[in-house]
C-alpha cells in the first residue's frame, strides 16, 4: 500500500503476536483448551485441522469477536485487553469465510473501515486497493452484482483498507468453486507478498497450506498438537 504503516511493531526480539493458554468454553463445553503459540512479524502461519476442531473460534478470539474463558493474547508485548477493541480489530484485520458485504457499491464497502474511525478513503486509495485484489475498475459496481470470487476479493480489500498489521483469514476460499478458489488464492498470495503483512490463515485444505503458508499450527479437538514447518507437521502426520 502507498501509505506508511500507522503502527510500529515492538522491538525485533519480541513476537508480534503471543497467544498464552487460550481457553474458550461455551455452555460447559470446551472448544479451545490452553492454546499457546507465537507469531513473528511477517510470518505466514496456517491453522490447520479438520472441521469442528476450533479453528474459527481461535481466529474470532484473536479479533476479539468472542471473549476467551482464560488465557490472553499479547500484541507486540501488550495485553490485548489494554487495547480498545476497535483499534485491535483494525490492527488484526479479519477476513471471514463468507464476504458479508454491506449493501451498496464496492467503493462504499472499502470506505467503511476508514470511515468508522473518522477517515476518508481517497479515490486513489480505492483504485490502488482494487487493483491490488485484481478488481481494477469495479469501484462503482453494486455488490449484489458480484460473483462469489469477486465478492471475496472485495472482502479482502475492505479489510486491507484499514491497513492492518496482520491478516486473519478464516477459510477465505472455502465457499468458492475450484476456479474462483485458485484466483482468490493468487490474489491473497500477491497481497501478502507485496505488503509483507503477517498472515494467519485458517484452512482445512492441505494443498492451500503449502501454497500460502510456511508454518503450520495443527489443531485437534481444541488443542494445539503440533507447531512447526510444513515439512515437520504435515509430512509427519
Amino acid at each position: 500500500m502507498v501509505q506508511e504503516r500507522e503502527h510500529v511493531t515492538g522491538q525485533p526480539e519480541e513476537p508480534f503476536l503471543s497467544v498464552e493458554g487460550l481457553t474458550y468454553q461455551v455452555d460447559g463445553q470446551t472448544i479451545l483448551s490452553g492454546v499457546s503459540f507465537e507469531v513473528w512479524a511477517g510470518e505466514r502461519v496456517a491453522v490447520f485441522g479438520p472441521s469442528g476442531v476450533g479453528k474459527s473460534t481461535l481466529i474470532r478470539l484473536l479479533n476479539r469477536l468472542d471473549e476467551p474463558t482464560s488465557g490472553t493474547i499479547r500484541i507486540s508485548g501488550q495485553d490485548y485487553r489494554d487495547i480498545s477493541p476497535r483499534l485491535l480489530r483494525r490492527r488484526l484485520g479479519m477476513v471471514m469465510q463468507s464476504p458479508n458485504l454491506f449493501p451498496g457499491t464496492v467503493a462504499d464497502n472499502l470506505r467503511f473501515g476508514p470511515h468508522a474511525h473518522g477517515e476518508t478513503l481517497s479515490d486513489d486509495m480505492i483504485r490502488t486497493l482494487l487493483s491490488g485484489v485484481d478488481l481494477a475498475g469495479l469501484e462503482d459496481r453494486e455488490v449484489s452484482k458480484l460473483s462469489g470470487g469477486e465478492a471475496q476479493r472485495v472482502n479482502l480489500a475492505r479489510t486491507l483498507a484499514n491497513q492492518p498489521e496482520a491478516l486473519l483469514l478464516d477459510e477465505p476460499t472455502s465457499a468458492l468453486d475450484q476456479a474462483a478458489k485458485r484466483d482468490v488464492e493468487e490474489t491473497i498470495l500477491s497481497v501478502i507478498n507485496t505488503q509483507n503483512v503477517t498472515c494467519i490463515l485458517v484452512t482445512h485444505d492441505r494443498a492451500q497450506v503449502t501454497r500460502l503458508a510456511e508454518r503450520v499450527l495443527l489443531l485437534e479437538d481444541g488443542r494445539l498438537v503440533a507447531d512447526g514447518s510444513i515439512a515437520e507437521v504435515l509430512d509427519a502426520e
Partner: protein
Amino acid sequence: MLSRWIENQVWLGAAQAGITMVAALLVVWVTDRLKLGLKKDILVSLGRGIVQIVLVGFLLTVIFSADLWIAIPVILGMIAIASVMTIQRVKNIPNALWISLVGIAAGAGLVISVMTFLGVIEQALTSIIPIGSMMVYGAMNTNALMIERFRSEVTSHVGQIEAGLALGASPEQVIRPYTRRAVSAALTPNINGLRSLGIVWIPGAMAGMVLSGQNPAYAGFYQFVVSGSIFVTASITVLISIVLLRKQVFSKAEQLLLRAGEGV
C-alpha cells in the same frame, strides 16, 4: 326495545350483554358442528372477555368516585402490567422488562401529563384513565413489535454485524440499519391507522362519544387527539426502548451477544 322494560342502566347492560353472549354461543355451536376445533378457545375467550371488562367497569365506578390524584397510581399500574405483557411476547432479550417499563413510562407518562396539563385531555378521571389506557396499550403493542423485529433483524444479519465490528466500527454504527428498520416497522401500523381514520372504521373514542350523544364534529376532532397522542406515545416509547435495547446485545468488549437461536 330493552330499555323500555329495564330502567336500571347496569341491569340494562347485563341484558344487552346477555343477548350478545347468546349470539356468540350460537357461533360456538356452529363451529362445533363444523368441527373447526375452536370450541374451547372461543368459550375461554368469551368467558374471560366478559368477566374482565365488567370487572373493569365496576372498578372504574369505584375509581371515578375517588380524588383526581388516583390517576397516577392507576396509570402506573397499567404501565407495569403492559411491561409484563410485553416480555411475555418477546423471548431471549435480557432486561426486556426494564426496557419496556422505562420506555412505556417515559412515552405514556410524558404525553399524558403534558396533554392533561394543557387541558387537551380533560382534567377528569373519566378522561385521563380511558385515554391513558389507550396510550399505554398502543405503546405496549408498538414496543413489543419493535423488540421482536429488532431481534429478528439482528439474528438474521449476524454476519454483516460482525463484519462491521471486525472492521473496527462501533456497535451503534453496525446496528443502525437494524434499529431503523425495527422502529419503522413497529410504527407502520400506527401510521397506517392514522391514514385510514374514519374510513369504514369509526374508532373507539369517537364511537363512544357519538353513542353517548355528543356532537359528532367535536367527536371527530377528539378522535384525532386520541389517535395522534397514541402515535406520539408509541413513538417516544420505541425510540427510548431501542436505545436501551441496543446496549443489551453487545458485551462491554463490543462483541455481539445475540445470535440465531440463542438467548443472551
